């Protein structure tokens, strides 16, 4: 494994470079290294030193990349090209699972990663940092991507310190280069006559020992340091990263977003060349009958038009400027909240490979300018960045607490694999909503907490997130509205048919926070489904709570869910229950009006109460405002958020809301945590 041990520095003559190549390829390892192809230096498999780009350099600028001929024969006299190592650690297409349907039985088999051992030759400082960034996202969280983890473990890293730079580089600002300090097996620094080499791991040492090297002289080492230091000097410090996260998040309403959106093609090139972008989608490939299917993970991008769409046609980031803002704020602000580092490593690829040459350094300076008082000596390039005025901040509903992201909840047992369950019975709730009662459910899923959800999969269909609407010792209820093909398939299932479940996922309702307090529950439409297990739990331990108030709204009387439960709740004398519908025919003798009117003029004291709210976001906003007006504290009002989910475990990137992954940091959040993210357009 790559390590950080300080070792002696060796010297390898230029003529002996092929020895290194062959040593890296020994034992059947495939060597990936830089090579000239189609007018660029790309990473591809190479078999001999002659295939390396000796004497080639590059000239890069916004939307501009050209190979140049150097006047020497340097092997690494260029910087990064259009490919990144992501291509080999996180390939464009990876199989995830195989699903089969045989009569009513279903079975699922997760794909086992079997990556070939690889060696990467020529990994720059910024690229090492990128691998480290992706490690945190894909390998070191509560859910790991098995394929990435295996590929990472199987790759030998030969890093190269940069002795040249491009005008698009800004590793110095991001703290990722040009020096290479850790994370490699072997490190190379090029001099005219050869290469300085050192190893930082056993694997690296083993290779080094096979090479015809001698100890490097002090003079050689000094020249190497000087060369790298010269690159640092050239680059200066184009991006002020001190306070950048805060500055960006304070400028979510800047006119700069609309301005860059006028030029942005939303073509997704920036995300695709970026070595740290990790958003993916899941696609199904099946036979004509849907009996045998494979689910595959494909590269996706927050710039694609459907990225933030949900079933039913809603789109949370419909405008190109929202999508650009998502990308930039994720890279330079919310990534810090999520993973503790910036997402950007300063490699400059997004600048060179943007077809219209949008330069993130310039956009950052325009949208989140550093304070005037920051006087630093910087490189020549900073003069290009025009500082524009800041837009006035928007008044948020609730001031966000400066608190870290809530700890994610790991699933109790099933991890990332689908386990089959069987439909025992189904119960139509309304014309388009049906409750499936599942049996043969894995005990780990039955141990779910109220408010958690499962990913539900039928072979050949996409997996969908469905909240658990009732828990019991042997059964799990899922209440599903047929809003798309996958949910229509589920609502069409009969007794005996199988589904795959993955979970339990997400953070459930914090019932403990309500013990000893008055409880207010506000449900709208199908929002009652994830609240029902909460009501079940509270009523089963009724004495632990103060007053219990349950307010339920629906569209029309015929759209009311859980008729039997509602009757029961309405007759209990230890629950204050009220319901309303948006409109009704003349035969309805109950309330008609909005659910907030059930409690906006009530007389109870909300200052110590805890509220749990679930329904369409617009309804939750109204309910939240009313509850705050009734005196509830924002840290005691809990809502659930809805976003597009493909994986349910925080790896595909789709469900992000500001710095949160709705699937693993939520979907339950307090208003205090969400702060301005609640109800902000296009976030």
């Amino acid at each position, binding site marked *: 494994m790559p390590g950080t041990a300080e070792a002696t520095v060796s010297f390898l003559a230029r003529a002996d470079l092929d020895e290194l190549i062959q040593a890296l390829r020994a034992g059947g390892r495939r060597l990936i290294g830089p090579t000239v192809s189609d007018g660029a230096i790309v990473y591809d498999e190479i078999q001999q030193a002659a295939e390396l780009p000796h004497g080639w350099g590059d000239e890069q600028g916004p939307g501009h990349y050209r190979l140049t001929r150097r006047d020497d024969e340097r092997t690494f006299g260029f910087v990064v090209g259009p490919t990144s190592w992501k291509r080999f650690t996180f390939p464009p297409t990876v199989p995830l699972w195989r699903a089969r349907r045989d009569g009513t039985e279903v079975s699922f088999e997760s794909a086992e990663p079997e990556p070939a051992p690889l060696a990467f030759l020529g990994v720059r400082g910024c690229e090492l940092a990128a691998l480290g960034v992706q490690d945190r996202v894909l390998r070191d969280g509560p859910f790991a991507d098995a394929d990435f983890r295996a590929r990472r473990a199987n790759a030998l890293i030969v890093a190269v310190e940069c002795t040249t730079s491009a005008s698009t580089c800004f590793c110095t600002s991001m703290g990722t280069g040009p020096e290479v300090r850790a994370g490699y097996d072997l490190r190379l620094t090029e001099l005219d006559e050869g290469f300085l080499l050192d190893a930082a791991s056993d694997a690296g040492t083993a290779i080094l020992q096979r090479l015809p090297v001698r100890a490097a002289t002090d003079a050689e080492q000094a020249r190497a340091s000087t060369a790298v230091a010269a690159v640092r000097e050239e680059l200066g410090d184009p991006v002020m990263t001190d306070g950048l996260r805060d500055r960006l998040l304070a400028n979510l309403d800047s006119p700069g977003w609309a301005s860059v959106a006028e030029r942005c093609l939303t073509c997704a090139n920036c995300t695709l060349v970026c070595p740290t972008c990790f958003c993916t989608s899941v696609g199904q490939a099946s036979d004509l009958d849907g009996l045998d299917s494979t689910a595959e993970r494909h590269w996706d991008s927050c710039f694609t038009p459907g990225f933030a769409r949900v079933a039913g046609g809603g789109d949370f980031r419909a405008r190109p400027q929202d999508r650009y803002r998502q990308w930039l704020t994720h890279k330079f602000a919310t990534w810090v909240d999520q993973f503790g580092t910036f997402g950007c490593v300063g490699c400059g690829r997004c600048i060179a490979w943007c077809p219209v040459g949008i330069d993130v350094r310039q956009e950052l300076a325009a949208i989140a300018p550093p304070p005037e008082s920051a006087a630093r000596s910087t490189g020549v390039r900073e003069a290009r960045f025009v500082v524009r005025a800041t837009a006035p901040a928007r008044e948020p509903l609730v001031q966000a607490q400066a608190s870290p992201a809530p700890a994610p909840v790991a699933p109790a047992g099933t991890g990332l694999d689908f386990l089959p369950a069987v439909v025992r019975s189904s119960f139509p709730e309304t014309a388009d909503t049906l409750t499936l009662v599942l049996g043969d459910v894995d005990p780990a899923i039955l141990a779910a907490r109220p408010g958690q959800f499962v990913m539900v999969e039928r072979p050949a269909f996409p997996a969908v997130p469905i909240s658990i609407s009732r828990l019991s010792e042997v059964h799990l209820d899922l209440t599903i509205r*047929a809003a798309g093909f996958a949910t229509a398939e589920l609502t069409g299932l009969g007794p005996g048919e199988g589904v795959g479940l993955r979970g339990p996922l997400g953070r459930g309702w914090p019932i403990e926070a309500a013990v000893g307090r008055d409880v207010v529950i506000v449900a709208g439409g199908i929002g009652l489904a994830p609240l029902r297990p909460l009501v079940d739990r509270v009523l089963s331990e009724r004495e632990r709570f103060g007053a219990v108030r349950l307010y339920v709204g629906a569209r029309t009387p015929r759209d009311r869910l859980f008729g039997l439960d509602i009757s029961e709740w309405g007759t209990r004398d230890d629950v204050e229950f009220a319901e309303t519908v948006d409109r009704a025919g*003349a035969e309805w*003798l109950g309330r008609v009006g909005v659910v907030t009117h059930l409690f906006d003029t009530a007389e109870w004291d909300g200052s110590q109460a805890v509220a749990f709210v679930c329904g369409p976001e617009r309804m939750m906003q109204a309910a939240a405002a009313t509850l705050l007006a009734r005196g509830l504290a924002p840290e005691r009002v809990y809502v659930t958020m809805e976003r597009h989910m493909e994986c349910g475990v925080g790896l595909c990137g789709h469900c992000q809301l500001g710095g949160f992954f709705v699937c693993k940091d939520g979907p339950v959040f307090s208003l205090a945590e969400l702060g301005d993210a609640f109800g902000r357009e296009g976030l």
Partner: protein
Amino acid sequence: MSEGPRKPAAADVSWFGADLPSAQRERLAALAREVEFPAGTVISNEGDAVAELGVVRHGRVALRLHVPGKGMLTVLTVEPGDIFNWSGMVAPYRSTSTLVTVEPVTAVLFDAMALREAVAEDAVLGSFVYPRLLRAVARRLGATRLQLLDVFASQAGEPW
């Protein structure tokens, strides 16, 4: 308009303000009366001239609109503490919906024309009546807008 027997006691006009000065309170009480309606009473029809505004004390009044081909649809119910027929204070002083009691209702009714005259003559009374009416109408307008958004119709299969 059909109604039950009048109650002999003075009507409670505190809906227009618990802190009404006594002169204004008396003036209001003089044009108010408490009434009991059995369930199913049509208090007024859409388009009728409004004779009396009402505040529900107990029970529920449905506001209904007629939609050809669909019959009467209830768009709002008026609960205890809420007002109906406030259009009696605004020209053309006609009911904008059909009001039907869906259960036995006790209401305080205010003579619309007399109230309009009283408010025109007495500015202090006006300073209590209009803000209270405006607040009730604003609350209702907010609700109507949310109902108009039909948020439940566009709900996906999952709230998240």
